[in-house]
């Protein structure tokens, strides 16, 4: 038993140390956030990189997921003669689960990895030290806009994913399977509750955005400043961010019932 504890102890200590560092890092980001200048230009640039450039992949994936949901939902519901509720099934699964989670996973792969790689490369080429020598805090100038951009972009992308998904479900349900358009839409409208479903969906994606933003910037900032170090950090961002999104998803769902 003791030996087991000891064996668990070391990695556990490492995990706790890492968590402590991430907490300090987060505190640092918050501290520089409340200080002027605002760095709107850098922030807008980052939202563009994380958000606007992800629009296509989000729309295509949302559409595809919506179509699959439409098809699977229809095939299941039709057994119970309940195909008229297809709108509710597609809408609710997208809003409550699929939208925020899949958007977070896609954004991690598309934008989170890029953030880590960029910061890591800046570190490897001494650009971060260069900033420090110009008396500019790299956490303020480089990290802060990237982290916040992720928090802001995530709910917007998730909303887009949901809209594209509902369109996909509509396409399959109404156009292919012949459900009445009015029936589909009113089932959707009646099922979705703003406070519960929509607010919960936004909460989820804001939390996921924070997670992905923090992990991707932290991994880049703490990367070993070599090509191999940066590539390892990028991989670890994708793994760590994806896994934590899925784990947090369970707890948010369990705690807030969204």
């Amino acid at each position, binding site marked *: 038993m003791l030996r087991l504890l000891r064996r668990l102890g070391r990695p556990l200590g490492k995990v706790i140390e890492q968590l402590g560092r991430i907490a300090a890092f987060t505190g640092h980001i918050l501290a520089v956030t409340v200080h002027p200048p605002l760095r709107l230009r850098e922030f807008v640039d980052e939202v563009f990189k994380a958000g606007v450039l992800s629009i296509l992949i989000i729309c295509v994936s949302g559409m595809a997921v919506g179509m699959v949901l439409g098809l699977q939902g229809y095939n299941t519901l039709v057994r119970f003669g309940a195909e008229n509720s297809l709108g509710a099934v597609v809408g609710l699964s997208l809003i409550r689960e699929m939208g925020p989670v899949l958007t977070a996973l896609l954004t991690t792969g598309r934008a989170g990895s890029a953030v880590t790689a960029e910061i890591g490369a*800046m570190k490897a*080429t*001494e*650009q971060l*030290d*260069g*900033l*420090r*020598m*110009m*008396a*500019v*805090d790299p956490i303020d100038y480089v990290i802060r806009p990237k982290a916040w951009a992720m928090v802001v972009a995530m709910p917007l992308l998730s909303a887009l994913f949901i809209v594209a998904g509902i369109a996909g479900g509509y396409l399959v349900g109404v156009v292919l399977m012949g459900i009445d358009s009015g029936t589909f839409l009113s089932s959707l409208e009646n099922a979705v509750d703003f406070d519960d479903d929509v607010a919960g969906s936004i909460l989820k994606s804001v939390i996921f955005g924070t997670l992905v933003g923090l992990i991707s910037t932290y991994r880049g900032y703490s990367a070993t400043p070599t090509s191999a170090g940066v590539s390892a950090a990028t991989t670890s961002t994708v793994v760590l961010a994806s896994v934590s999104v899925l784990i947090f998803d369970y707890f948010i769902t369990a705690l807030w019932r969204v």
Partner: protein
Amino acid sequence: MAYGSRAVLRGVSCAFPPGTISVVLGGSGSGKSTILKLVGGLLRAQAGQVVVGGRDITSLSESQLYGVRRRLGMMFQNGALLDSLSVLENLSFPLREHSRLTRDQIKTRVHERLAAVGLEDVDDLMPRELSGGMVKRVALARALMQDPEILLVDEPFSGLDPLSTKLIEALLVRINRTRGMTMIVVSHHIPSTMRMAGHVVLLLPGSVVQGDPAALRSSEDARVRRFLTEDTDASEQILAHTHEFEAGEHAPVRRGGA
């Protein structure tokens, strides 16, 4: 100073007199860049003191260091330009961060500094579009943007043609004369070193020799003479010695105030 368990600069004590151009000489890997990074507070020595402008910076926190760094300008060995910004934006950056000058005033100052290092019409080029020698000169111009009290320059002459070398040498001497700027220049270029230096610090395996250029030239020490005579065979011998020097252990670093 040690990187992990790898000790560099062991028991080194040297002073850089204010208002003077000090040149740091030493074999590749002898720790010249490391000295500059210690003075800039980018690295922390395991033991000993680093005194800048009468202030011991070894005990300062990172945020206190930003105050010290505003009086320093540093040109990194690899330039460390921000590669997402154009040359104009790179040079404007320190002034945009720390001064209240208008856009036009900044632009005028940028062109002034670029002309001083012998560059023109490079405003819109990105760092990756510059040659090695151009990067060096842009980086030097950036270090000079805020008229620092102390200028740290890492190998300004490597990769430059003879004409540019003369130009940069003359520029450094002129600034030093007119503004009384303290300069620490790392260089391999013996002739220009001997012309411009008011003080020379030579890092030898296991020891440091310092003094004014004339004193060093007439030094009795065979190693010093070999280093200064530009004899390639001799230089290589010194390089061979340097490796023994690096393999020491943690030890005090002391640096007199500039």
